[in-house]
């Protein structure tokens, strides 16, 4: 369960979080928390940002033509614009991306996508919410903290909880 108190005022969600939040991969154990996070952000009227490159990732693999997403309250598709481009070049120069590729073994083209999305998060001062470790690693190199949807869940600290019911005693 998501804790409303933990929600950020503005979160930019990664492609994997968006696809799961929209109801896909229901059998994936983390799809539920992505959907819960999405729903909780909307109920709390917090801003959900989606980087324009995420729209490309979401739509490009299908035969269906890419259509513009809906323009609705509290969900904003944000452009990779001039300011984002300058941030991307400054924070994720080619050597940084190539080093990341060597460390992770991932495709360079995908890491470049990650850099584009991360630059959007920095550009719009948003918390990046992702499930992907390489994304978090690249973000850390730019000094950007990433969160997972699970980070906004209510933490049950059983050790510190008081019992709901009194323990029966012999006198009662």
């Amino acid at each position: 369960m998501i804790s409303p108190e933990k929600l950020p005022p503005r979160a930019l969600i990664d492609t994997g979080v968006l696809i799961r939040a929209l109801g896909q991969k229901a059998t994936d154990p983390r799809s539920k928390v992505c959907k819960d996070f999405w729903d909780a952000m909307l109920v709390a009227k917090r801003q959900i940002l989606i980087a324009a490159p995420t729209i490309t990732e979401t739509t490009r693999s299908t035969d269906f033509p890419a259509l513009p997403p809906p323009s609705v309250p509290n969900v904003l598709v944000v452009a990779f614009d001039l300011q984002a481009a300058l941030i991307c070049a400054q924070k994720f120069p080619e050597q940084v991306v190539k080093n990341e590729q060597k460390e992770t073994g991932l495709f360079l083209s995908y890491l470049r996508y990650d850099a584009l999305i991360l630059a959007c998060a920095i550009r719009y001062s948003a918390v990046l919410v992702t499930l992907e470790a390489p994304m978090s690693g690249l973000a850390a190199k730019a000094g950007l903290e990433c969160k997972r949807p699970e980070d906004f869940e209510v933490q049950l600290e059983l050790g510190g909880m008081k019992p709901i019911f009194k323990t029966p005693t012999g006198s009662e």
Partner: protein
Amino acid sequence: MAAPVGPDDFLLELDGPDVHPASVESAKLLEFASAYLALLGRMATEEEAPISFHGLEIIDKCVAIQVKPDDVDYARILAGASASYLSGDRPPRGLGANVARVQQSIREFPKDYKAKVIVGPWIQPLFIPETKPTSDLPAAIETMRATVQRIGGADPRVRFKGLLDRYPFSVDISQSEAMALAPHLYKDVEIVIKVTRTAEGRAAYCELVSFEPVVTQDAGDAWREWFRPYATHWDDVKDLSEALGRRDQS
């Protein structure tokens, strides 16, 4: 004279060879300061957040006129935005005469004099078109969601506040654009603008390219509906993270 410059001080400085209070024509210096402070005052009035300056002093630092703004942070923001207007970016309607007056006051000095505005540690050179460095801020096309805060006038303008932007900004528009935007007053719209920004991110010059209204329907439903045609593909994907070229961090 020679008062110490503190973090809240606001200075208009002239620098150049042999520039000091005794060598600079007083009337020209006062006209420069008067014109510049009038420009900032007009910009503040346009933003409906007036500002005032008091406590004038002449500083023997090259030569500088020092004043105390009632809000030094706001004064610095206005000064930052003013620089792009003075260097030749088209100012919002209504500021043209003030900008021209400052430009003319700077032209009255020898060409090797350099005008600056200094706010504490912050220094902003004031260029006019003929002295503007070639590496100026480029204009860029941006898309953003913005609230229509105000619209209208004999020469129509619209005032937007970008939802993700810190500062509101005004755009000159046509009457037909004003009429089309009017039903969206106080509502959010998606806009495409051609904009030049200051180093602080304020929109110094802006043109409206197009706009679309934001639809007031359930966001979750609308996005799921949009995603439906693409869902089949992702349903068939075994490992979503792998398909996206990433790896889970679980």
